[in-house]
């Protein structure tokens, strides 16, 4: 029988923590990527470190979205889920992860559990799932594994991988090889045992699930260019290495830390060092020290850490110290939702420091940009003598995607430490009046001696409280942003050049917004989207673009007042963060739709919201 060709599927594997569902999904994702499918995987992580088994709150696992197109986000409801027990599905259902018709492949071992309570729970759950519209298949997965290994708790995941590879018509040999790669370095017996489980799972699916046999053709137009598969935090780590920075100074904080974990492993190979400081303040101060001494450094953190770095960030702005700050945004305010996604740090990055503290702010829209923007950030930091904040978020941090393997070039790297003689005629801040730019002496350069200070200072870095000096130095620091903006080009419009509705986004919502826009366009709506990477300075040409649409709105994962809520008026409505910025700069009545649900925005949620706005727009114009 030939497989049914489908365009994409969303697959989940859900289990208790420690059962290897994540490794199963990652391997499945890698195989699919090698088969040139578009892939996005994201882990499902329980809130506790060791959650109790068989409980909704303990749901641990992975979602893999794969398709014939380039996949940029986690998608809507799942199509097929493999569950190691029934309880963990409850929380996924509560999160809206499934729809009527989602196929559930459930291990039926609990039906015959020695505990009658467990048996009852199992039976009840299966009923409820079916009532919910899920298509539940009770399968003897555990039993089948037992035929291959003694303890299926270790290994069931590879059995499931086999099942999935058959269901999605993956190359069987490639699957076996991927297992060998995954367990590289382990004993031969372990590898072959897992491969046997894989084979058994593959056969199991042929025997018992023949109705599910799909094929997802390779992504069109995707050539042979080399790809890598990573999450966003790893991409940040790779970006740090490729940029030639030598120091990451950090303090652990979720969801940023894994970038530093990764670097701690690999950074020394290119001469880099990860400094775990005693707190975030010391971490950024340490980085500033290194940058001052000529080795532009990077600090990686998240919300509460950003809050603590506020004062030092102001120093770096004032003293024009190049510095790269990666903020992996999480839910706020305060400790908030440490593992969840939010785009809540835009305004605090921009305006967080007392006084006037202009700096460059970039936001990564994709995992590949987690790499490339870090490389860019180091360059901008040095060229514009400024801290550069790179905003990513929990969605990018943990999402995994294949992306084009970057070509590494020498000009990505920091130039060698300049220790040549400085011309003492040139002041330490030899601001170019027009651009605000200047070159700077580095300790070790003879005749370049100057004293960096956070006090108001002259171009020779002498403390000065004179009105004219302060006005000038403040202008020069601001001017640099205008200069940078003058080198940028307007953002590309996704969709028509004019129309009814323009959606403006930034950060990790990129893929979901474009997907929603594409769907609406397919249904004949005149919707377009732009997505900003530069938030400070803003990309140019926005007002002009906005003028070509009846309505402009942002879609963001942060808080805005619902205009229809009690007490909220046009006068007091608090807007989403990018919308706030755009209103200041363009005076266009930029509306917004934003939520703080803590999870990545699903394309269909966006689609609904946009449809709502389109409907109002159409009824207003009498259509």
């Amino acid at each position, binding site marked *: 029988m030939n497989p049914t060709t489908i365009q994409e599927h969303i697959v989940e594997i859900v289990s208790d923590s420690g059962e290897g569902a994540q490794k199963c999904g990652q391997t499945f994702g*890698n195989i699919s*990527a*090698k088969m040139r499918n578009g892939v996005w995987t994201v882990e499902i992580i329980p809130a506790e470190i060791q959650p109790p088994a068989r409980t909704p709150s303990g749901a641990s696992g992975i979602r893999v979205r794969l398709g014939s197109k380039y996949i940029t986000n986690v998608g809507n409801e799942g199509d097929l889920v493999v569950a190691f027990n029934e309880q963990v599905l409850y929380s996924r259902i509560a999160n809206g992860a499934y729809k009527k018709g989602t196929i559930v492949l459930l291990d039926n071992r609990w039906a015959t559990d020695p505990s009658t309570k467990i048996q009852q729970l199992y039976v009840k759950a299966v009923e409820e799932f079916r009532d919910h519209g899920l298509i539940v298949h009770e399968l003897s997965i555990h039993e089948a594994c037992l035929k291959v290994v003694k303890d299926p708790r270790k290994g069931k995941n590879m059995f499931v991988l086999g099942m999935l590879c058959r269901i999605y018509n993956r190359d069987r040999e490639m699957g076996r090889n991927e297992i060998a790669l995954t367990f590289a370095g382990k004993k031969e017996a372990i590898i072959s045992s897992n491969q046997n489980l894989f084979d058994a799972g593959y056969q199991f699916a042929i025997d018992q699930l023949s109705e599910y046999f799909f094929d997802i053709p390779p992504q069109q137009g995707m050539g042979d260019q*080399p*790809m*890598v*598969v*990573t999450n966003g935090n*790893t991409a940040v*780590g*790779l970006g740090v*290495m*490729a940029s*030639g920075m*030598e*120091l990451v100074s950090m303090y652990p904080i979720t969801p940023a830390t894994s970038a530093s974990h990764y670097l701690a492993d*690999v950074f*020394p*190979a*290119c*001469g880099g*060092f990860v*400094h775990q*400081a*005693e*707190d975030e*303040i*010391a*971490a950024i*101060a*340490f*980085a*500033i*020290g*290194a940058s*001052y*001494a000529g*080795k532009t*450094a990077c600090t990686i953190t998240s919300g509460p850490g950003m809050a603590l770095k506020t*004062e*030092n960030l102001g*120093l770096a702005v004032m003293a024009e110290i190049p510095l790269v700050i990666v903020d992996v945004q999480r839910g706020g305010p305060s400790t908030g939702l440490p593992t969840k996604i939010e785009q809540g740090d835009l305004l605090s990055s921009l305006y967080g420091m007392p006084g006037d503290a202009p700096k460059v702010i970039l936001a990564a829209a994709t995992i590949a940009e987690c790499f490339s923007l870090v490389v860019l950030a180091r360059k901008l930091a040095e060229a514009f003598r400024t801290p550069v904040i790179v905003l990513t978020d929990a969605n990018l941090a943990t999402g995994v995607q294949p992306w084009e*393997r*970057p070509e*590494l070039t*020498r000009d990505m*790297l920091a130039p060698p430490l300049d220790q040549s003689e400085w011309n003492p005629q040139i002041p330490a801040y030899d601001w170019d009046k027009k651009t605000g730019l200047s070159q700077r002496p580095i*300790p*070790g350069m*003879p*005749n370049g*001696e*100057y*004293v*960096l*200070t*956070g*006090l108001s200072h002259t171009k020779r870095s*002498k*403390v000065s409280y004179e009105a004219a000096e302060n006005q000038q130095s403040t202008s020069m620091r601001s001017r640099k942003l205008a200069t940078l903006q003058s080198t940028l080009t307007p953002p590309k419009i996704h969709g028509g050049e004019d129309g009814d509705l323009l959606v403006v986004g930034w950060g990790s919502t990129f893929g979901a917004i474009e997907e929603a826009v594409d769907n609406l366009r397919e249904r004949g709506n005149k919707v377009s989207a732009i997505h900003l990477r530069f938030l400070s300075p803003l990309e140019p040409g926005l007002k002009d673009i906005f003028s070509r649409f009846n309505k402009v709105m942002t879609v963001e994962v942060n808080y805005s007042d619902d205009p229809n809520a009690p007490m909220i008026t046009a006068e007091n409505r608090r807007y989403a963060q990018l919308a706030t910025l755009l209103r200041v700069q363009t005076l266009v009545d930029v509306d917004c739709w934003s939520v703080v649900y803590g999870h990545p925005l699903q394309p269909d949620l966006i689609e609904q919201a946009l449809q709502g706005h389109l409907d109002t727009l159409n009824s207003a114009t009498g259509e």
Partner: protein
Amino acid sequence: MFGIKADWSLDIQERYFTLDDYEGNEARWCSGCGDHAVLATTHRILRDAQLPPEKSVFVSGIGCSSRMPHYMATYGLHGLHGRALPLACGVKSRRPDLDVWVATGDGDCFSIGAGPWVHAIRYNMNMTVLVFDNQIYGLTKKQTSPTSPINLPTNTHPEGASLDMLNPNTVTLGITNASFVAQVVDWNPPLLHETLKAAHAHKGTSFVRIIQRCPVFVDGITKALQEDSSRLLLLTHENGIPVAPGVDRLFPESREHDPSNMAEALEIARDETTKDIIPVGLLYQNSDIPCYDELSSQGHNTTDAKKIAATHAALDTFAI
């Protein structure tokens, strides 16, 4: 001492440095302020060592004493209140070739800077830390500092400071990896010179608490010490701070103390709290403690080719 260091003479023209080469802007401390003495001594130590001015970096926080970098003709980093130490550690982290000094105050180091203080001592990076301890907040005009004597009237405690003064030495000695702990008064130039010189020569973080005159706000504190030097206890030892002939006569009280003896160092340090006997000299030294900069600077000279190769190798592991 006056010679050019061999490694420098190889790369650059032979230069001879005079005091001028180390003197920055005119110092704007009050007259009679002890900071002047420390500054002058530091100029001399650099001159004696003939260190090229561009190779030294003076890092400070905020306070009267933290203005020191402006008065040096070397590189300087006048940072934020309480953050001198992590800034300095950062400077040193990838530039082991730089000669790093820290100027900090009792508020800057022991109050807002207490966290960095504990951890910088732990890192034991190779730098010289001068704590200008005038037992008061000078720059902000007479607020209580952690080392203000109890009952001292200040602007924040008009009825007198309410806590017993914090003993910086017992804390510092209690921090694992403390490698050089000395104490000195600003008004004895030869002893100050020898102390800073020994601190500068030490490999690791040299922590020097300088009891410093602030005649403007707390004239009485140091005047009392100058008038009754029997409250000072000079520590002597062949491995301690060399005491020039004549200097010892200014200290009626002295005690032989082996700076490698931690238990005794702790006891002597504690006597400042319990008996008001203020030790002067080298409390503790251990030159065998590893310096974090040796670790943090590893690979600082890695070639571009090697960096690219390592990044490629990293990418390889994710290749599909």
